[in-house]
């Protein structure tokens, strides 16, 4: 029988407990690469995942990195981030809105950055 990764408990019950029974965030505001920045320090009594996010995001950290850091699915991470965002404990730097195709200036910046690697 295949088991999950060591230390992981993927039981849906546990995930529902983390989010107070919610299964999805109120909005899709948090993209995978929205950069999250802490606006406050963890405080005593805070849910441990919330505290972990605040420690992780002292410098900008993408949603997907937060999820990997917590070892939680992205969808659950989004809900936890929404909690913190609603209470002003984090700020979110969303990807610059693009139309169907990316902006020419952004592409130039990406090319310069890649060539400098």
């Amino acid at each position, binding site marked *: 029988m295949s088991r999950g990764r060591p230390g992981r408990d993927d039981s849906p019950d546990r995930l529902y407990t983390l989010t107070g029974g919610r299964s999805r965030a109120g909005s899709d505001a948090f993209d995978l690469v929205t950069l999250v920045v802490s606006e406050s320090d963890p405080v005593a009594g805070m849910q441990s995942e919330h505290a*972990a996010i605040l420690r992780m995001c*002292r410098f900008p950290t993408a949603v*997907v990195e937060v999820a990997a850091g917590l070892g939680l699915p992205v*969808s659950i991470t989004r809900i936890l981030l929404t909690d913190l965002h609603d209470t002003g404990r984090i700020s979110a730097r969303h990807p610059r809105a693009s139309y169907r195709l990316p902006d*020419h200036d952004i592409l130039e*910046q990406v090319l*310069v*950055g890649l060539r400098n690697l």
Partner: protein
Amino acid sequence: MDSVTSEQRQTLHSTADNGLKIVVVGGFGVGKTTLVRSVSEIRPLNTEETMTQAGEDVDDTVGVAAKTATTVAFDFGRISLDAHNVLYLFGAPGQERFWFLWDRLFSGTLGAVVLVDTRRLADSWYAIDRLEHHGTPFVVACNDFGGPAHTPAQIREALDLADEVPLVLCDARSRESSKQVLISLVEHLRTVVAAAPRPTPHPIPEPTP
């Protein structure tokens, strides 16, 4: 959490404010993670998205038991391009059964790299077909596994690849080679954007003579 916090996690510039995405898609074992690792400034991380296939409108409390949850794991890496732009590379499974997740997971992506193994070209037919239908610009990168050499023309024909789609050969283990793959994608994007009609911010009423 331990695996990330126990090692020195490289942090982004405090000025970083624009996340960008490129998806690397390909079959199992084709070298997606290898390519991401070659160019990433962090050790590739793994995370997962759990999706339910029931409709979005299904009432949560009623529908829970009936929904089928699908978990898709994906790797990602990161490249800080400058003080503001951070490029995230996502390695995604290209198999047919994962594709219903793509629109959600990778919406807003700049473009895609289809990584192929010339010994198993058929594995990438589905990915190419879906990207074409979705209108996501992409390049095809052949990872060199040292098999019998094929000419680019042979590969193009086997993949039924449109002339305008760049085809590059690469060694995913090489940072320089992987970097060139990304550059070829962004140069291709530039061509696509230049050729596209410019979006008009406000509808202009047609003058009637």
